[in-house]
């Protein structure tokens, strides 16, 4: 379980984090969304005990990052957004070094390392030098490294950044496996739709403040209470435009003649929406389809962070 209480980090007069409060239950996959410099990496660095907060505290399974840093380190696996590897060290030696750094015995390491390499699909690269691996392979190896001491919590800062689509898919598959293992995962990413797929909860951070937190569906519902509806018709388009414009919950009606469709924003309840469709059919409008447009996470993010300073 992760508890963040009033976490604040100041650099001079600049607030990198401002009174961040967050509670995550065990086994949750939490996606952290935010623009560059929003405070995601600062939060992760504090959780990874690399930065001391100016005020507030964070607890990993009850251990404070401020006073119990050593204990916290045993419980977290951290993968930074940018990281380097040692030259002239082979993949298995790389994992062996970090395994030893976590105090894992040589015997255990001998068993663990092939399993971890298998998990991240790098068994065939076991004896290759890490500095010669591709970016995607290095990312996967770093993920294996963060798992070597079997942490309960994984903190992954932009694990898919800079990867090609294939490597991203591979990374996503590994993360799904880890989710299946019951790990609590905190993940930040710019590729927002990927988070929507994987995460149980999402937090949107902007200017060091957590401005939205909840399930993907909850956050989408927070979108100023409006949804976009597209209606496809057969003929009578002008009549239909007039009909929808008269509804009190409808705004921004747009007609697309080529597609024979009308798109509008709707802020009514589901009941109102049912009534609207019923009335439209009563008006003899030839409706082929009446559907809500899927709002993707990037739209949500843009909408939520709009005007937040």
């Amino acid at each position, binding site marked *: 379980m992760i508890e963040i209480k009033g976490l604040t980090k100041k650099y001079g007069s600049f607030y990198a984090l401002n009174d961040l409060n967050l509670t995550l239950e065990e086994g949750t996959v939490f996606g952290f969304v935010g623009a560059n410099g929003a405070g995601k990496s600062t939060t992760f*660095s504090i959780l*990874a*005990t*690399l930065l001391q907060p100016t005020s507030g505290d964070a607890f990993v399974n009850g251990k404070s990052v401020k006073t119990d840093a*050593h204990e916290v*380190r*045993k419980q*977290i696996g*951290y993968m*930074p957004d*940018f*990281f*380097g*590897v*040692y*030259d*002239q*060290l082979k993949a298995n*030696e790389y994992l062996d*070094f*970090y395994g*030893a*750094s*976590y*105090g894992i015995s040589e015997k255990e390491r001998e068993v663990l390392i092939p399993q971890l390499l298998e998990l991240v699909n790098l068994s065939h690269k076991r004896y290759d030098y890490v500095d010669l691996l591709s970016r995607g392979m290095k990312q996967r190896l*770093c993920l294996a*490294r963060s798992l070597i*001491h079997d942490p309960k919590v994984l903190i992954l800062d932009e694990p898919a950044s800079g990867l090609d689509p294939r490597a991203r898919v591979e990374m996503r598959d590994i993360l799904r496996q880890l989710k299946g293992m019951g790990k609590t995962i905190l993940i930040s990413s710019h590729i927002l739709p990927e988070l929507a797929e994987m995460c149980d909860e999402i937090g949107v951070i902007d200017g060091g403040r957590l401005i939205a937190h909840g399930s993907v569906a909850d956050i989408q519902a927070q979108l100023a209470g409006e949804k976009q509806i597209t209606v496809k018709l057969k003929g009578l388009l002008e009549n239909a435009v007039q009909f929808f414009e008269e509804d009190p919950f409808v705004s921004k009606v747009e007609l697309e003649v080529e597609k024979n469709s009308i798109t509008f924003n709707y802020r009514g309840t589901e009941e109102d929406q049912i009534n609207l469709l019923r009335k439209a059919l009563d008006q003899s409008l030839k409706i082929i389809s009446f559907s809500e447009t899927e709002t993707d996470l990037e739209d949500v993010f843009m909408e939520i962070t709009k005007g937040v300073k």
Partner: protein
Amino acid sequence: MKQLLANPVLVKEIKLRFRSLKSFTGILFYLIAMCIFVFGFIMLTTSFTGTGYFRPEESFFMFAMLSYIQLGLILFITPGLTAGAISSEREKQTLNILLTTSQTSFQIIFGKLTSSIAFLLLLVVAGLPIYSLVFLFGGVSPGQLGIIFLFFFLTMLAIGGIGIMYSTIIRKTIVAMIATYGTMIFFTAVTGFIYLVITGMNSMAAGTLASSPIAHFLQVLIQLF
């Protein structure tokens, strides 16, 4: 002690150091330089005297010169090996990961310092066969050799410690290296100069000017001002 030496950073650093050809060529050139000096010295001494043998005083002089050369080498190499120990991890972006492991900061620093000193000790030990030539001609006791090696070790530890300190507090390796070399020069050349000045002044006070050039130099300065 066993636990200290099983330090993962130490093991990794030693492994990486000996995978690099640089380390071996470094030792090779160091030994070549020492051989040139020793054999050159023996050849010159025997040719000039025409006797074909080496007197014990000459042997001691050779030992002293060899020790100075080795000291100079230690002073020159130690900052290079230690001043980048932590800052290069920072530059390579491997430090953050290392800091999130269960290792304490002491273990990391101990591993880095020990690996550098281990390499320097290897360098010194590799030069022992050349040193042993001094014993062939007599004039130097094994105790003197032991003391000089202890002095080398303490010098490595001190300069290495300073290098690691700068490497930890300064972000850039190049700046840390300049700071370490600067401090090393202060501790050797500047303190050496101060020592000579004090010795010279003492000589002046005792009225025995002839033995120290520094005393003459100081006397000239005093007369000028």
